[in-house]
């Protein structure tokens, strides 16, 4: 592992939503601040900065992680995916985004980006989750507005849709 000297400033390069991006960061710059203020990707939100609320969740090399508990320098050379990268190139909402909208799974919208990123990772790892598994995954996030029920519904619906699509593809 590279050793960093105190007070050093670095050029950090990463792949943000499929696009190579470069910015400057101090040793201590949090990934959340780097994404938001250096790269201008403000879709990722900051709610507590101590790793509880989950609003800042992004995917690093596919795995959901707290951007507020990650240093920008740790993301050097890695793939970072954020809420801005979920929709298709033509702006078409993906199935999870559509399910959130359909099910009224958000209100003020502040926690939503982080929740969507956790759900994206989770649904790839756990394609047929139970409600209890979904709730357990969501427990890494705080939402003050919805009471979670509609979020759970949206995630389960997305999982079921994907399952159905997979079945169809198998039979096709």
């Amino acid at each position: 592992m590279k050793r960093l000297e105190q007070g050093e400033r670095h050029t950090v390069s990463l792949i943000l939503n499929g696009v190579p991006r470069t910015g400057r960061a101090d040793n201590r710059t949090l990934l959340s601040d780097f994404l938001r203020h250096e790269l201008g990707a403000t879709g990722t939100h900051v709610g507590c900065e101590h790793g509880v609320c989950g609003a800042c969740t992004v995917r690093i090399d596919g795995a959901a992680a707290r951007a507020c508990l990650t240093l920008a320098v740790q993301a050097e050379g890695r793939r970072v995916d954020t809420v801005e990268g979920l929709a298709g190139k033509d702006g078409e909402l993906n199935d999870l985004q559509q399910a959130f909208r359909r099910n009224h799974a958000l209100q003020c919208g502040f926690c939503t980006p982080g929740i969507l990123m956790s759900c994206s990772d989770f649904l790839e790892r756990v394609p047929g989750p139970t409600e209890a598994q979904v709730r357990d995954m969501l427990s890494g996030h705080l939402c003050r507005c919805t009471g979670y029920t509609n979020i759970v519904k949206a995630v389960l619906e997305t999982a079921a849709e994907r399952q159905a699509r997979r079945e169809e593809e198998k039979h096709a």
Partner: protein
Amino acid sequence: MGIPTEHYTRKEKLGGVGCERRRKEDARFIQGKGNYVDDIKLPGMLHGDFVRSPYAHARIKSIDASAALALPGVHAVLTAKDLKPLNLHWMPTLAGDVQAVLADEKVGFQYQEVAFVVADDRYIAADAADMVKVEYEVLPCVSDPHRAMDPDAPEIRPDLAGKMQGAHSARKHHNHIFTWEVGDKAATDLAFSMAEVTVKEKIWYPRNHGSPLETCGAVAAFDKANGELKLWVTSQAPHVVRTVVAQLSGLDEARVHVVAPDVGGGFGVKVGIYPGYVCAIVASISLGRPVKWIEDRVEHLAATAFGRDYHMTGELAADKDGRIKALRVHVLADHGAFDSCADPSKWPAGFFNICTGSYDIKVAYVCVDGVYTNKAPGGVSYRCSFRVTEASYIIERMIDVLAQRLGIDKAEIRLRNFIKPEQFPYMSALGWEYDSGNYAEGLRKVLEACDYAGLRREQAEKRARGYLMGIGLSTFTEIVGAGPTKICDILGVGMFDSCEIRVHPTGSAIARFGTKDQGQSHRTTYAQILATEIGIPSENIMIEEGDTDTAPYGLGTYGSRSTPTAGAAAARAGRKIRAKARKIAAHLLEVSEDDLEWDVDRFVVKGVPDQMKTMKDIAWAAYNNVPPGLEPGLEAVDYYDPPNMTYPSGAYLCVVDIDRYTGEVKVRRFYALDDCGTRINPIIIDGQIHGGLTEAFAVAMGQELPYDKEGNLLGASLLDYFIPTAVETPKYETDFTVTPSPHHPIGAKGVGESPHVGGVSAFSNAVIDAFSHVGVTHIDMPYKSCNVWKMLHALGLDKRE
């Protein structure tokens, strides 16, 4: 199912009141394209951070900022001394008190703002804040409000020394803020002295915090060349912020431009004006650069306005059949070091006098004493219309206490005391005119849906086997939609609200409002109200709020007031549009206005259905072919001063099971029936109810901001402060009755806060009901497992046979 009629299809297409329209806000949020205050980045922008007091009560002997100022990247360190020449070291509060912007010679609570550091970025600002040396002389402190008015209690506010008349009443002690009395004391005392039964209970509603997921913040940008200030701010009431900023700064109000962009939840916390906003403004004016201030979560919980903290004593007088004869309540209200309560200015305890609830109580008396303590200021309404949750809690708890004393069923005692439908409009003993309600119908529906009798049988069986099961009821009445300007104002500005509509030539429209969404879905629901009124599909109606340069003046969104006030303004502005449209249609069709009738989206000549003009036709004509004497264009504005509040109500039932060995409370069932009058969008209503109930669950089961004797806040992070996750949060069943408000243009009452107001009592009553068979009449919230276990242990209920 037959083929839908053409008329029905048109109505469906309109997407008006009552339809389950999907939210218009979501597309941006689910793509990360929202625009919250912290997303704003301006060229040359600097960042502010506070030096805060580690002590609850201390004199500031000196502040040495030299080391901080020497740090590269630091531009300024502001203290009270710098603000004094501008007369900005203190600011007025909404409650008629003043609050220190930066501590002036002494601090009154832990985490109080002492100095404001401005630097190139937030990291440097935080470093510099650590380097500011403040020398304190620690003073004796009062954190217990019951000790605040002891003769020898330390004086928290020497700035008020000798001022024996407060904003609301005479002050009887140096830590006394006000005494507020309502009702007939003599008649109440008499009713108590003659009553067959009286009950009394001390009930504390603990200090808690709304804590929206987005903390508070601001970006101030002063343009020296033009003398104009632009302020982006996390505000539920941007127009009020503009007026207050203009008054404070001396800037012409026309040169102050306030924008509340997307707001990540508010829950009352974002109504007031905080020192951070003022410091960002001052720093921007003095440095000539934009300045951003975003508080962190600890600052938010520790220094930004808390909710509740009411120490109440409730008393009921009744006859042996449980018919309530009188209510008496005394409250000791802990307001912290400054009275920064966000209530309408004339109401020091908000609308606490709604505490007669849903019951026909002939005489009542309420007395609230507000006191200063060495704690953070606040007293905002955490998703509740001005102390209504506290009011609802005391009566819903007390009626259970009375039922237990008399051995009357808790549902039955409510049915015996409800205000009856034929009594509306009902004048309460404490001065409110309830607009409409059908309380018994709601409760009966809930009891039946949940098989209440069956639940009580199950409870009896379980008790016999040593299990603890509780059934909680809450049949609450809210008072929202503040309010009539003759009784409600914020710093002198009447609490009306507004809507301005412009219909464009091609038949789409934009409408702007004086309220401000923080998740309530205004873009979706206001457009539905307008669609029904003006016959333009909601999909073609844009809704805007939050920008004081474009939106009409309004008092903002809190106290469930948006639908009752701005929603009414929408309906009325829409009717003005329709009235003008009728004139244009008559002109186009060459008939008299009286020959026309309105049909969903068009005017039709009576009896000649093919002779008609749609709103689309009329909109076009408004810009090129209006009748002689009529102005072109199709616009309207309405400032709505409500004639009365609205009174939403509900009946909630909660079932809990308690583990007698661990104290864990499990919510097995929660059934929520709400009556918010006319229902604009059932999906949005359900969403509001789910969210509000979850906050109520949080309050009942864990939220508190505890202080020790030295005034230290014991835990101000999300590791300490309870916000439930998807795992703890119960599931809810929702239901409704519809009793429209007779005075609201579309009969709507507002719903955002009902679930919080009614929910807390339901959870609380359920937990306490589980202990009713062993004589327990009250347990203070929050019902954390450890607290419940203590009760179980004290009663010996945790013993294994």
